[in-house]
């Protein structure tokens, strides 16, 4: 035990971590890494280990940040904070990370004392969140559940923001529609009471096929790898069938015993005794007229044969992830032991068993006996890399869509929310400067510097959307975000500017623009007249973005507040 004898190395203490060049360089590197991934034109990262493990190509914050680990606890603090947001809200992880790191960097550049920046940031964050909740907020769009158009747009923005999926326009639309369809299927139609329990979408991925062959089915699809036994399926339609679900292993082994030693007489044949027990179980199931027998784990082949010979469909190795959806779908209670008789209330019901074929996968489609909010999404893509990214994106989209039930709003995408919000904060904070100064207790210069840092950080999230050297612009009426391609001069701008980032504002000749990150006259961003003819093209999740904004500012404030980093070196 050499390690016990080794001398304990002293802990490493870093004073004022933000003054440390190494930490600053790493923060800068992390910001660049994440900024380069942002948005539909973001760059991808190939994540792998140094011993030739699988390569993951991605630009998704959840995958990236969980792969990245730093020797600096300070970096990990920020990383964990963002990952925590992503685990709860799925979306806007990169937004939060870029904003947080920008705020830290700009606070550092401004030379302001940490405590001042923290106070100003808090104040400005409140301004932002209040404004976003307001009825007349210029960047919030009410979602209308009478039409699926806005939902599809929201899904589309979420899906198209990840280029590693490599989807064509048509494919993006197809997946967006499926995501919305799946979401709608998970909303129960008539549940009594005020609390609604949402169902679940199970995603099954099938590699090597066209994206357009992806589809959504109500109910559950489970793998039927054993192709030998699919002949007696014809009569299993329409009538609800009784089914049983086991969570215990029925492999016939002694796995339940756990560790420890057992001494056994050689004459004892445990295998055949357990098998007898299993067959008893089989007899009961046959007597109780069960037609579908499902087990989370392995079923002994002899039991399988017995059940099949009596016309029962057997599914083994269901896996832990499908257990909950299946209990929801069928109303069955998983049986956890094979040593007692199965209580009658443990049985569930299914309707309409059909065999479906997806590429090389044969699946059994189970429909609920009545109303149920479980659905299955079959996702196909041409290779594993793109398919795994697509799966992550679809899960994220499902989450985003679910938030719309709690808060039926969305924010304008394409960087417009950020530029608009920055313009609003600049305007509003100046209007209320006197009150703010007295409550914050700082000088006007500090206040102005703080505002500038905050607003520029917001704007730099909008500029982060551009990766091909295009210039970011801001119009001086609505403060929406525009992008000018790299090779176009400002003089020819009018011909080369499309609509703004979110697609709500069209380019008109007498409009005034300014480059982002330059000084521009203060404007009160005018809300757009709600013209129903023009609809935004890009929408972001309201709930996720508002929370991301809070997480970003609070994490930045926490980071700015850190005085010492004590690193245990053992």
């Amino acid at each position, binding site marked *: 035990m050499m390690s016990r004898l080794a001398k304990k190395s002293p802990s490493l203490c870093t004073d004022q971590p933000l003054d440390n060049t190494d930490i600053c360089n790493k923060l800068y590197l*992390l910001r660049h*890494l994440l900024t*380069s991934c942002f948005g539909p034109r973001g*760059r*991808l*990262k*190939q994540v*792998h*280990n*140094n*011993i*030739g493990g699988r*390569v993951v*190509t991605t630009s998704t914050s959840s995958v*990236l940040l969980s*792969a*990245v*680990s*730093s*020797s*600096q606890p300070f970096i990990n603090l920020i990383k964990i904070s963002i990952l925590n947001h992503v685990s709860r809200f799925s979306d806007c992880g990169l937004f939060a990370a870029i904003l947080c790191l920008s705020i830290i960097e700009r606070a550092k550049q401004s030379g302001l004392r940490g405590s001042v920046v923290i106070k100003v940031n808090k104040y400005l964050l409140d301004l932002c969140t209040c404004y976003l909740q307001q009825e007349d907020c210029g960047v919030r769009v009410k979602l209308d559940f009478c039409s699926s158009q806005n939902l599809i747009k929201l899904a589309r923005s979420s899906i198209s923001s990840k*280029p*590693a999926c*490599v989807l064509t326009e048509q494919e993006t639309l197809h997946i967006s529609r499926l995501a919305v369809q799946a979401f709608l299927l998970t909303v129960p139609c008539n549940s009594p009471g005020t609390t609604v329990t949402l169902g679940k979408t199970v995603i099954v991925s099938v590699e*090597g*096929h066209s994206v357009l062959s992806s589809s959504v089915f109500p109910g559950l699809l489970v793998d039927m790898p054993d192709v*030998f036994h699919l002949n007696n399926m014809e009569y299993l339609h329409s009538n609800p069938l009784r089914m049983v679900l086991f969570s215990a292993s029925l*492999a016939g*082994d*002694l*796995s339940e015993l756990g*560790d*420890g030693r*057992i*001494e*056994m*007489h*050689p004459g004892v044949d*445990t295998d055949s005794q357990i098998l007898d027990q299993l067959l008893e179980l089989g007899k009961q199931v046959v007597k109780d007229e069960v037609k579908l027998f499902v087990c989370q*784990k*392995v079923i002994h082949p*002899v039991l399988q044969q017995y059940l099949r*010979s009596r016309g029962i469909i057997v599914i083994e*190795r269901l896996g832990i992830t499908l257990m909950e959806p299946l209990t929801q779908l069928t109303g069955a209670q998983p049986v956890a032991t094979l040593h007692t008789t199965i209580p009658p209330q443990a049985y569930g019901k299914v309707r309409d068993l059909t065999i479906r074929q997806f*590429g*090389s996968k044969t699946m059994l489609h189970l429909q609920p006996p009545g109303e149920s909010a479980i659905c299955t999404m079959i996702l196909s893509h*041409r290779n*594993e*890399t*793109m398919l795994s990214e697509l799966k992550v994106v679809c899960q994220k989209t499902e989450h985003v869509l679910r938030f719309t039930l709690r808060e039926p709003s969305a924010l304008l995408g394409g960087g417009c929310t950020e530029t608009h919000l920055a313009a609003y904060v600049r305007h509003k904070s100046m209007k209320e400067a006197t009150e703010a100064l007295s409550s914050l207790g700082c000088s006007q210069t500090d206040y102005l510097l703080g505002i500038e840092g905050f607003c520029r950080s917001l704007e730099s999230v909008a500029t982060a959307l551009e*990766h*091909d*050297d295009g210039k970011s612009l801001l119009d001086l009426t609505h403060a929406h975000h525009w992008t000018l*391609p*790299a*090779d176009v001069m400002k003089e020819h701008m009018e*011909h*080369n500017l*499309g609509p703004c980032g979110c697609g709500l504002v069209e*380019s008109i000749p007498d409009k005034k623009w300014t480059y982002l990150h330059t000084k521009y006259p203060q404007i009160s961003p005018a809300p757009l007249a709600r013209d129903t003819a023009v609809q935004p093209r890009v929408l972001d999740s309201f709930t996720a973005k508002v929370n991301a904004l809070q997480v970003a500012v609070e994490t930045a404030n926490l980071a700015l507040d850190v005085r010492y980093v004590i690193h245990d070196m053992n």
Partner: protein
Amino acid sequence: MPGSTIINHRQHVGLQKLSALAGISHSSLGPNKKYKFIQDDASGDSTLVCSCFRIFESLELTCAVGQLVHETIQAHQKVYHTGSGCMLFLAGAWSHAALECLQRGISVAQIILAMSEGMDICLDVCKKSSVSTEGLGVEQPESCTKTSARLGLQMSKKPIGDASQTSCHLQETKTNGHKTLNGSVQRKIKLSRHSYEAKSENVSTILQPHQPKHPDIAHIAEGLSHGCVDAMNLVVEASRIQTKNNQHDVSCSTFDVNKVTSCVLLGLSEEHSCVTPGCIVTLSAEQASVAHHLKEQHLKVALINGDLSDSYRHLGFNRPTGVQRVTAPSDLSSSSKEEEWIEKVVTLLLKLEVNLILISGLASEKLILRCCRYGILVVEKVMASVLKAFATATGAVPVTYATQLSKHCVGIEVTVAIWGDLSSHERRPSTTVNISTGGNSDLVTVILTSCVHGKLQALEDQFWACAYRLHHALRDKAILPGAGLTEMLCIHHLQEQAERTVRHYRERNGDSAQQTKAGTTANPCSGVVLHLMADGLIDYISTVLVNTGGISKVGARTAVSQQLRDYKEGVGFAAKFSQLFLEGEQDGSAASISMKSSEAPAVKIYDNLSVKQEAWRKALDVVFLVLQADAEIITGIDQKTDGAQGNLMLL
């Protein structure tokens, strides 16, 4: 403390790597495949490989791009079994094109946009130039020749469309002339190579009543052989046997790739390769003597899914770890426990009158010997698909344990015939027997023979590539004109579109007063990108031409560009061009020398529709993934040791 490292790729190393990796594919394109040796420096082992897929399998690349390519090739191979070489080549060629674009200052977003547009054009060309397999290759009287050729023109508008509507469109197609690109050119080459006139208006109005015709498998297969004539002949033979066995519909020729198995035999020359109905297996001497006793009898068969031994347990069965047997001195030893099991199994088998056991896994040595004594033939390592075929044909039910066997699990009406005795050819005595099920299953075995051990794998791969090419053609119900014709059409369309874009852009910029919405303007760089994409395809065709033989790279390029020029002037792709492929092929392969006689009809070359489309798309997918990746993140780096490298940044 593990950290992460980021390598920043400013120079687009990924694209360069992809381009370099694709170099591997060059020699495996075209009808004349060249073998490669892959040698392991550490162990001194070497393998002989012939296909891209096998090369990547043996190389074990660890770099990110290498892995991505390997993963894509595997995914493609798993479904299509052919076309990986084409995919890799184009991935390389188009990554080269992307690199060139970047050097010219075109942004990543613009490249992706334009290349996607280019892919749409190419896929559209494929769709339009595809030829229905229905009635293809059926000889028709000369008067109908031109009609059918024009018919192809019609299909260009309505791919694989309803041919019964053709008559009303015929007038229109006459005037269409060469504006529509399609497979009809290819068909003319086939049907009337010498009498072909481009501007012929002599369209016969005699239309045959159009009935759905069954595809002429032999003809399609010949066109899809791509130089592997021998392998394809075996496929055709397999299809012929399956068709004969298919009692439901004798007129319809079929091919079910799932009912084909392959069996490789070392020690016979390659001419001995053949196809036989049933399932061919190799047996040891003891088993062979049992087989001799069983021949010409109606046998009862048992199917075992797993191993046949005392100690075998089904998948997912966990052996208890902490169990200790308390043994008394008088107890039986473990070997006699096996004896007991064998006794039980043999008694059961005899009771059920089983003569033949097919096992997907292995059987215990002792049991095989005991079974031999009782005249029961045990065959190991039988493929799952074969077990399934026997299950359906004989009514047997596959079981995991022999003890599960009961009367209704046993199948009947199986026969065993001695197929060949190789004991004189080789040191190891081995006999091959044919196990068949009295004609009601389509199971067919292809026996591939070679004297060179290293070649067996390649021969098997080639056979399966051919089998799947036919399979996909029949499933797609359409094929593409091959010999580079489809690619030529794609090049033509890409270049045309490129010129259109440039023209459009120039016009728009000349007229500056004109107000256009920026969102709708054509990408000004897309012309360049499309041109470079077309160059990738030109490179592909010329490489195939070079590999076909008898022509240099420069010569090949000249021939291709000459053809493209001619085509633009309305001459059409001459038969001469596709003959370039054929002549080379004939030089290379002695088997097809008879084709050279001028009296013989020219061989048609076809490509698979879905395979080509998927290979192209996957190639572009890889390029896009690599093009958009700007950094590598390596996790689990020990910062103390690896931190010194220059291009690494530590987090």
